[in-house]
């Protein structure tokens, strides 16, 4: 194992899959000559050439659809959205074409495509640039959605996504590109299955269910809780869809108390679904009502203080944990 950044991990995943399979290509705005708006595709143009690392004009609907058409013939496109906030202009392609094709064609055409890019609120980008899109996409049957929080997960999930025969969205955490973590060396194949959560920290008093940008938040809060003698278990979903229900139930059956901390909005957010499933399937395990910590239900303000208030944060999570622990 060695320590690399989340950005490097994604870059390695792309390079390894491009090298492994000639059917794989990377397409998006600024991915080639500019090396990616967030430098995730650094060096790929030089290594794989312009046939496989392809710059596009600003036409998200167009190139998302191009990718889907290419995937109908068996190519394995990786389509980068500069951010998932911009994927909304390609919503029709991602939600109405990619996941429906297999059903509509009676199983004749599967769509082995990966859509990837940064997702979730970053710092002070204002309402148009701060979308956490996971709940929008997870709502569409036929799509798979994963949300890696660490360099290791980023690499392993992206590689798996590229090999999947279905449309997979890899929602990268915009704020975590420079974060570091231990990852297997490049000569060791790292594939992390979709639909497998990971306990990022063991604990016995409360389960904090989180994903993407809320994972480091939950870990920080868990360390603080430790000082107050509350032992928090951190369950990182890693994939939103498929959802690893077993891992959730296992943790909740141990702690009997749950806080879900999500980076998206409260109404129909990811936490709403997780919460519903917990109460439906393991109601008897609960010693307290489940609490969700999410964004406030407002468009994202630019002002730094206001933005902090809108986002899930340590204070909100802390008080939610204390509430379910009756502490």
């Amino acid at each position: 194992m060695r320590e690399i950044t989340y950005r490097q991990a994604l870059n390695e995943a792309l390079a390894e899959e491009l090298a492994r399979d000639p059917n794989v290509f990377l397409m998006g705005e600024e991915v080639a000559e500019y090396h990616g708006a967030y430098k995730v595709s650094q060096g790929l143009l030089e290594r794989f050439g312009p046939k496989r690392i392809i710059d596009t004009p600003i036409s998200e609907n167009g190139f998302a659809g191009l990718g889907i058409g290419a995937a109908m013939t068996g190519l394995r496109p990786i389509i980068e959205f500069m951010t998932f906030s911009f994927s909304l202009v390609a919503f029709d392609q991602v939600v109405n074409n990619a996941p429906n094709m297999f059903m509509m064609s009676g199983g004749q055409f599967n769509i082995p495509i990966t859509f990837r890019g940064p997702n979730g609120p970053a710092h002070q980008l204002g309402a148009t640039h701060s979308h956490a899109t996971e709940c929008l996409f997870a709502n569409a049957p036929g799509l798979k959605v994963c949300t890696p929080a660490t360099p290791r997960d980023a690499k392993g999930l992206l590689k798996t996504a590229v090999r999947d025969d279905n449309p997979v969205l890899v929602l990268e955490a915009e704020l975590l590109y420079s974060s570091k973590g231990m990852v297997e060396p490049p000569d060791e194949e790292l594939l992390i299955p979709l639909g497998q959560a990971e306990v990022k920290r063991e604990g016995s008093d409360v389960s904090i269910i989180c994903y993407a940008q809320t994972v480091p938040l939950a870990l920080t809060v868990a360390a603080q809780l430790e000082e107050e003698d509350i032992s928090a278990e951190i369950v990182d979903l890693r994939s939103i869809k498929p959802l690893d229900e077993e891992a959730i139930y296992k943790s909740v059956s141990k702690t009997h108390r749950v806080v879900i901390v999500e980076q998206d909005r409260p109404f129909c957010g990811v936490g709403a679904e997780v919460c519903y499933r917990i109460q439906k399937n393991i109601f008897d395990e609960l010693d307290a009502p489940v609490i969700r910590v999410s964004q406030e239900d407002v468009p994202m303000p630019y002002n730094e203080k206001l933005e902090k208030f809108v986002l899930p944060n340590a204070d909100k999570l802390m008080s939610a944990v204390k509430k379910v622990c009756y502490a």
Partner: protein
Amino acid sequence: MHRPEQRDEVEMLAMMLLIRRFEERASQQYQAQKIGGFCHLYIGQEAVVVGAVAAVREDDYIITAYRDHGHALARGTSANACMAELFGKATGCTQGLGGSMHFFDKKHHMYGGHAIVGAHVPLAAGLAFASKYREEDRVTLCFFGDGAINQGSFHEALNLIALYKLPVILICENNLFAMGTSVKRSTSLKQIVDRAEGYDIPGDIVDGMNFREVRDKVAEVAASIRKDSHPAFLEVRTYRYRGHSMSDPASYRTKDELEKYRLDDPIIRLRAQLTREGKLTNEQFDALDKKAKQAALESVKFAEQSPELPVEDVYKYSYAEGNKS
């Protein structure tokens, strides 16, 4: 590989008849409530797809909008599989899962039936991108209506297609109407083909009621594309005799307009051409028509007798299985 110019014209006339008679049966079965949802008939436009398909290879990709029955039939999907699809049966071309607007037939390189106006034009770019990526000399035929040309996805796709020099023939089936909106009320251009100019794509206007003109134009363009990959745009002028869908009485147009086009019927025209040249007798034509009618009638029987998928099968088609790489 067959040479398109050798494709037998009598056979192509038979195909146009099959589409016509199939659609008439579909209309009747829709009225008898054997067919659900929306149903858009292709009657009047047969020469467009039959002419275009006659001019290309069997392994070329074709993709179209929701008025797609004729496209599947012209490509070789059986009338039985098409009618069974309309009936929602397991023997349909998508096992009854896609319906009228979503015909697919991978074996015949028919890449759908797409019902969101304009949304399949980027897919066509992708099909053509794939041929170019693999260094194949296939062309992609992308059919769409006059209603699609004002959609963002269409414009984005045309720019990408031109920018990457993709081997696509963009075939606008200009039947003068998008539902009840005439082109005059939807489009700021004098003629649709001028859209292509804005993207530096060579364009042409074709008489869509004339099978030979469509075939020859598509053949010429396809040959040029195979030599050196590039797109082309054909505005094919045609007319739909029926309403937009089964529920539309088409009161937005005059009887005289419809009559004018009916007199210019693509089937009558090709028949006349062949008869004049001594390639078809009246008896032969009648035999072809009888055969088409019979095939259409047979397809109804086939559809009626076919089974439906069991309901538990709905869970099988959300995701493709396995992680093949």
